[in-house]
Every structure is written in C-alpha cells, then in structure tokens.
C-alpha cells in the first residue's frame, strides 16, 4: 500500500474537519466554565421521595436574589445550578430559604471562583499550552539531531508543529460545537487534557520518525518516498494497537468513572483519536513535502 501517494486525500480529510471546526470556534467560541469565567456552581440533592422541577428551582433562586444562568438535573433528585459568584453569607441565606421551601437539601458540591483567580487561571492556561508546544518541538528537533540526509531534524520539528496544531484545533473545535449544542464547558481539566494530548500526539509521531531514521540508515538504496512509506506501514499496527488500548481504558472511565471528570476524559478521547490519525497521515508525509520544495530532484 502506498500511503504517500494518497497523502493529498489525507490532508484534504484533515482540512475538511479543521476548516468547519475553525469556523465553529470563531462563531460559537468556547463555553467557559467557572474556572475561567468566575462564578458559582452549586449541586444539591433533595431528600428522598421528592422531586423538584429545575425550572421552578431556578425561578425560586432568582427570586431570592441569586443570578442563576442555568439549573440542570444531574440525577432524579439532584440539581446543578450555575450562578454569578456568591459569597459565604449569601449562599448560607439562600440555603436557609431553600431548606424552608423544599425540605432539607444536601450540599453535594459547592464551587466558587472569584474574578482574580479566573483571570489568573486563563493566563496560566494559555501560557501552559504555548510552553508545552514550544518545549515539545524543541525536544523533537533535538532528539532527531542525528537523522541522516535527505531529511533533517528541523523538518521533523516542523512536522511536529503541524501535527500539534492539527490536534489542538480538532479538540478545541469539537468542544466549541459541544459547548454550543450541549452546554459542555471547558475548565482547567480541559486544558490538562489538551496538554496531555499534545504529549501523546508527539508520542505517535516520534515512533514513526524513529523508524524513518532507522530505515534511512539501513536502506540507503531506496528512495526517500518509499522509506517514509515503509516506515509508516511498519509502525501502523503499533499506532493503532496503542491507541486502541488507550481508547479502552478511557471508555471504561467515560462510561463508569466519576461524573466530574467525564468531560476531561472525553477531551482525552477525542485528542487521542485525532493524535493517532495525525501521526500516521499528517506528520509523516511532511518531511518529504518540506524537503521537496528545497531540493526537488534529489531523490
């Protein structure tokens, strides 16, 4: 099979995902969780045997002076409320009123993030993603410094940047869509997932690069294109198998794990799938592309 021959199809498929993704991101934006926007999350459980309509609950809280943006049922008798930041006294008062109105309620979770922290977290998140990308690209360039001609470690570095941007864009775009249609919010754990995806995406690329390096030394008689192609085919089983095992464990977490990390796990899952795709089809053909512009007749 000649993957390189069909590379334009693979690029086209990636673009077909990324272009609408970027448009979605530009129009919808990401729905920011309280980590980045500030605010209060309050999850309560109403005593057994009673049910509360979430709309009624929201109206009641608004009457009591809270500024509620949404109230959703997380289980039959529990409700998750998102509101503007409230302080200790306000929440105590609200809780008292709620107890009077709806019978005793149990606090499952209460999270409050003020404006100072949310701003700081946003800055840190952007910085972390930037730093991780730069560090990884430098690392790849350094790790492959001994790669023989006709390619170079700089070319590998470039490929890594493309693969990383590809993966980050796909994950972020998916979450822009999820945010718009399913109210999925991004929080610090989402950034954590993004960084992890960056690490793993490179994981796959490195395995392919490593094989290209080895085959370039071993099969000097072959032209560059077929060396790259063979290296891709040889590492394909590994890439797919590894991704499958990672997908298995993540599916177990998504379906059976704790509720508060579901979004995190979903981001990892999307990232690992796109990371595998990008390392096989996007990352590896690129050294030749860059190279062919410089010295088109060499191989």
């Amino acid at each position, binding site marked *: 099979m000649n993957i390189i021959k069909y590379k334009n199809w693979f690029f086209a498929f990636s673009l077909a995902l990324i272009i609408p993704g970027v448009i979605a991101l530009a129009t919808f934006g990401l729905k920011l969780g309280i980590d980045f926007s500030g605010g209060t999350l309050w999850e309560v459980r109403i005593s057994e045997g009673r049910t509360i309509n979430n709309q009624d609950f929201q109206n009641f809280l608004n009457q009591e002076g809270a500024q509620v943006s949404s109230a959703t049922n997380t289980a039959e008798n529990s409700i998750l409320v998102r509101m503007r930041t409230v302080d200790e006294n306000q929440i105590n008062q609200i809780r008292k009123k709620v107890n009077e109105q709806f019978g005793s309620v149990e606090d499952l979770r209460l999270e409050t993030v003020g404006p100072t922290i949310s701003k700081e977290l946003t800055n840190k998140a952007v910085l972390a993603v930037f730093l991780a990308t730069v560090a*990884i690209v430098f690392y790849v360039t350094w790790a492959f410094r001994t790669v023989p001609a006709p390619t170079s470690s700089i070319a590998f570095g470039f490929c890594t940047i493309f693969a990383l941007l590809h993966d980050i864009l796909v994950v972020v775009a998916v979450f822009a869509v999820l945010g718009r249609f399913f109210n999925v919010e991004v929080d610090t754990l989402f*950034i954590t997932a993004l*960084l992890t995806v960056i690490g793993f995406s490179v*994981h796959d690329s490195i395995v392919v690069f490593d094989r290209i390096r080895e085959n370039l030394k071993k099969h000097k008689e072959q032209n560059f294109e077929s060396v790259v192609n063979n290296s891709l085919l040889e590492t394909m089983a*590994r890439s797919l198998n590894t991704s499958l095992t990672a997908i298995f464990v993540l599916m177990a977490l998504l379906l059976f794990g*704790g509720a508060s990390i579901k979004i995190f796990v979903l981001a990892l899952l999307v990232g690992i799938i796109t990371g595998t795709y990008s390392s096989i089809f996007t990352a590896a053909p690129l050294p030749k592309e860059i190279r062919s512009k410089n010295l088109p007749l060499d191989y």
Partner: protein
Amino acid sequence: MPKNPRVVLLLIIILTLAAVYINIPKVKIFGIEVAHPRLNLQNFQRDLEPKLGLDLAGGVQLDMSADMANIEEKDHQSAIESAKNIIESRINSLGVAESNVQVAKSAGKYRLIIEIPGITDVDSAVSIVKKTAHLEFRTLKADAPPEATLSALPENFQSSTLTGGDLKLAQAAPTQASQSIKDPGYVVNLQFTEEGAQKLEQITTDNLQLPMAMFLDLEPISWPPPIIQSIISDGNAQITGSFTADEARELAIQLNAGALPLPLTIERQTRIGPTIGQEAIDKSIVATALGIVSVAIFMIAYYRILGVFAVAALLIYSLVVFAVFKIIPVTLTLAGIAGFILSIGMAVDANVLIFERIKEELRTGSPKHDAFFTGFDRAWTSIRDSNVSSLITTAILFNFGSGSVRGFALTLAIGILISMFSAITITRNFLRVFWVGKI
C-alpha cells in the same frame, strides 16, 4: 543488574510480593485481621494508608487572598507566615487528619490555599479559618492567690487594655552577648505602637515583677508567662527565656498573627459533600478494574502468548505504582486516578512496540532469540524518546496547575517512569526465561 535471568526473575517476584504487602487493605479474613505494614524508618515514617483528595474524601478547599494594604512591605512575609501558622493550628484543633495550608504568591499578591479533606461540618470550618486572629495581653487578676505569681493558671488572668492591635511587630533575635546572660540563646523582641507603648508603660508599672500572659484566640501561648522585669516606657519589650531558635521563631510567628492581622477574602471555594466522594471512589474502582481487564483481553487476543507476559507485567506494574503512591504519599483525586489509568494504556504501548518489532523480525526469518534481542534493542529508542515528550508535558502541567491538575500530572508521570521499567525489564525477563528458551 545481575545478568542471570533467573536471579532477575527472583528479584521481580520479591518486588511484587513487597508491593502486594504494602497494598493489603485493612480487612478481616476468617476472623484474622490483616493489614499492610507501617514504614518506620528514622526520617521516613509512613502509615501507608491511601490518601484521598477532596473530590474522593469530601471536604473543602479554600483559596483566599490576603489584604496587605495596612502592612508594610517588609513585613509581608512575616504576616502571611503567621496567618498560615495560625490557620493550621485552628484546623488541627478541629481534629482533622490531613489538612494542608499553602502560601502562594503571584503577581505580588499573597494567597493561602487551604485544603481540609474529610471534614463534615464545612460551615464551621470555613468560619474558623476566616476569623481574624485575636491577640491579647493579660495580667493577673487582683483576687489571684499569692502563689499564682510563680505557678499561675490561665484562669488567674484577665484581659488588659493591651491587644494585638497595639503590637507593631515581633521578631526572634539571638541574645546579645553580655555579662548578665551567659547562655547564648534566643529572645523575642516586641515593638509596640505609640499608643501601645503608653498602655505598656502603665501595665508594667502596675504589674512589676508579676507575670504577663499572652493569649492568641483565647489560648495561652508561651506558657508559663514571662515576668515583667522592669517598667517599659519606650514601647520596645523583650521576652527572654531559654528559647531555642525554633521556639523563638514560633513565638514571634504567633505574636505576629495578632500584630499583623490579615483580612482574608475567599477567592475560590470548592466543597464536596461526603456522599458524592464515596460514589466517586466506587466508580473509580470499577473503571480501573474494567480498564485493566479490557486491555488484558485485547493484548492476549492479539499477541497470544506474548500478550500473556505483557499482562503479567502490567499487573505487577499496577501493584508497584499503587505501592509507590502509598509510599510517597500521593493524594489521590479523580483526575489522579485518570492519570494512573491512562498510564496503564501507556505501559502497554512499550510492549506493543516491542512485540510488533519481534513479530516483524520473525517474519523476515530471524531465529526466535535474534528476533527477541533486536525487538528490545530497536524499540528502546522509540520508547525513550516518546516517553520523554509525555514527561515534558506532565512537568509543565505540574507547574501550571493546582489540585486536580497536579494530581493528574503527578500520577501520570510516576506511571510513565515505572512503566518504562516494567514494560522493558519485567517483560524482557519473562520472555527470556519462559519464551526464548536456552540460548
């Protein structure tokens, strides 16, 4: 590393047994209580209980900013340290097992991050933490028995006019070398405000040669109380006593908590009820087990006998990682468990790389043992380079985040490091002993 594969196998078995021993939960089997050991080395004491973070144990985390507006810049560090110290002792008085108070500084602003897992009465914990420290100086009651001068009880004292607000700063200092004091020790110097100096002069005049006690949040500190030696009119007092450097520092910190009261504002708060935590633990155990089982089924179905060895190595890996979590100790959170589970997937990756390589070599007609050696040798650079990239991201995550993010970064990093050992050394050894045969 010993060369003889059988010796290595023995070492692996010992390691596994040690990990199992550390991981034994406290249970009763047929009426006999079984439990994991405690580590009791000189500087290394561990009860080896699994430590649960906020989202698993329930509890509260507070992120509070300190208002330094009324405090001189040079005293900022002392003020925040005192606040930390006093909050720690207040939380300890609640009888909570694992609390943690950290000072964070960013963009010149100080913050205190307080974690109290496992607490049920969150409301009173929050109010106890937020309370401003109250320091007062007390003098002997008029009706105190005469012997109270020397062996006074806390209840023999009454509030004086002098409080923490009158104190500017307390500082520990080494004793000035002089003829009267032969023993070189430490003292605590107190600097009072102008108003405080006047009050102090009055008090020292009225209570000369009598004790003066200091109470922080209604609890006496530095007991027995110092005796007033002379009338102090310039507002500079000194507490002498045979203090060590640490004792003097501790006392200064306690006094500063009253002298430099910090108004604290809650910037971020996370409270998790106890029920949600228990549900999360149950779910995590199920998810972890399912994760391991599904990976095991896949590996054995795809790689047959090689897969069996990889799964055996994976089980040892899981045991060792969990034991390491207990030894360090790592506080487990939901995200931390996700990091661990993800590292299971990664641990298999190394084996997949090696096995694919071995299969390839076998296809080209290499004999079994050549394929074995080439497989391990050639896969190593890929495994090393790719894991380094993951370690780079975990390092950045660890520095970027707090709480869950850190937990995830830490467990993933530990997992990756141990997996490089288990997937290579352990699997390699199994294959050498049971698969390659005599070389």
